[in-house]
């Protein structure tokens, strides 16, 4: 079980995910490591958009890959591309993550985001900081939402799922999904507006 850097293994460059999967099932640890390397950013991104914290998202990413490895036999090409299946497993795990009594984390005061690790827009420093402040405010607002509003909002506006997909994922009617997403957005908009009023239009 070798530890590999983020660089791709040259011997796997031309291998498709399907080929790597076949090797994984045959016990090839190197193929598994390459498969994880290819998809780590995607899984981390899903995890981060759910929890909003780098460290927690990295822990969640590890948990997801442990789970995926144990379920590799369940994936079939008929399920679609491996990446899409992996995303679905990741989203399910992220949702479960917060349904296992970890609500208390959501209400903790966030540490400021790790700004140096965020991509910069190239805009002026002042404008960038103001924007970042609003981003942080909205992110904290998401975490303060009740779960029934937060989950569909994240799936829609952060994960990019369609209303139909969200209804299926959460097992709630389509109309309920639309209503909850709108209520979540309105709640965040109301808070942002209130903050802007309190800070004289600069927030």
């Amino acid at each position, binding site marked *: 079980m070798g530890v590999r850097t983020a660089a791709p293994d040259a011997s796997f460059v031309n291998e498709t995910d399907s080929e790597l999967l076949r090797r994984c099932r045959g016990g090839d640890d190197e193929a598994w490591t390459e498969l994880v390397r290819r998809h780590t950013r995607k899984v981390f991104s899903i995890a981060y958009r759910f929890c909003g914290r780098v460290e927690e998202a990295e822990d969640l990413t590890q948990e997801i890959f442990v789970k995926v490895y144990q379920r590799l036999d369940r994936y079939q090409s008929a399920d679609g591309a491996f990446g899409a299946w992996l995303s679905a497993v990741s989203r399910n795990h992220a949702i479960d993550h917060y349904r296992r009594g970890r609500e208390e984390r959501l209400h903790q005061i966030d540490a400021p985001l790790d700004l140096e690790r*965020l991509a910069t827009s190239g805009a002026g420093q002042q404008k960038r900081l103001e924007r970042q402040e609003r981003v942080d405010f909205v992110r904290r607002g998401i975490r303060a939402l009740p779960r029934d509003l937060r989950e569909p909002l994240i799936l829609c506006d952060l994960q990019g799922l369609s209303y139909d997909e969200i209804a299926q994922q959460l097992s709630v009617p389509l109309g309920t999904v639309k209503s909850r997403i709108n209520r979540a*957005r309105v709640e965040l908009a109301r808070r942002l507006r209130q903050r802007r009023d309190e800070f004289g239009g600069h927030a």
Partner: protein
Amino acid sequence: MTSDRECRTAEEHLSADLEGSLGPVPLEALAAHLARCRECAALRESLREVVDILHTLPVPEPAEGLAARAAAAALAARPRVQPRPENPSWLALAAGLALLASGLLVRGLPVGERLEARSRVAGQRLIEQVEQLVGDLEALRASAGAEASSRLDRLDGRLQELRRWRAEHEATPAPEARGSTPGNGECGQGSRTRGLRPA
């Protein structure tokens, strides 16, 4: 003037308006309401900004070693083939022997009588073997505990039959054979130290 009800209706339509999926009639009603309600108009602008922020929330790059750690964690957590515990295999062996021996002996009482008729010494050796088996089974039963108790319970009846059979054959011992019998009394007292003692 606007009513709270109109404001609530307008709020319910804000996302659909933003997404362009509002029908013409409610769209016209919403536009009319927003034209005369500054609160709802301002709320719509804030909602537009919120959705813009949500759609462009930055995601930091994962740590350099995350992929390697995640891959290693999955490999470390893979289920390993568990070695079969020793006791159950010994248990199966002993239970099989017990069943075989008890079946032969119980069904073969006439054989025992013939043995007694031929040679009481040979019969006594058989008794010693049964005694050994009983002792080992009792030790095994103690070590296996509840996990195997149901299976061993089924052997109890057979063991009782063995004990009765032994008692019957010990009731009229030949003097030359009695002298060599260890632990004349409780089953297996003199022969429990071999084989299947619990750890």
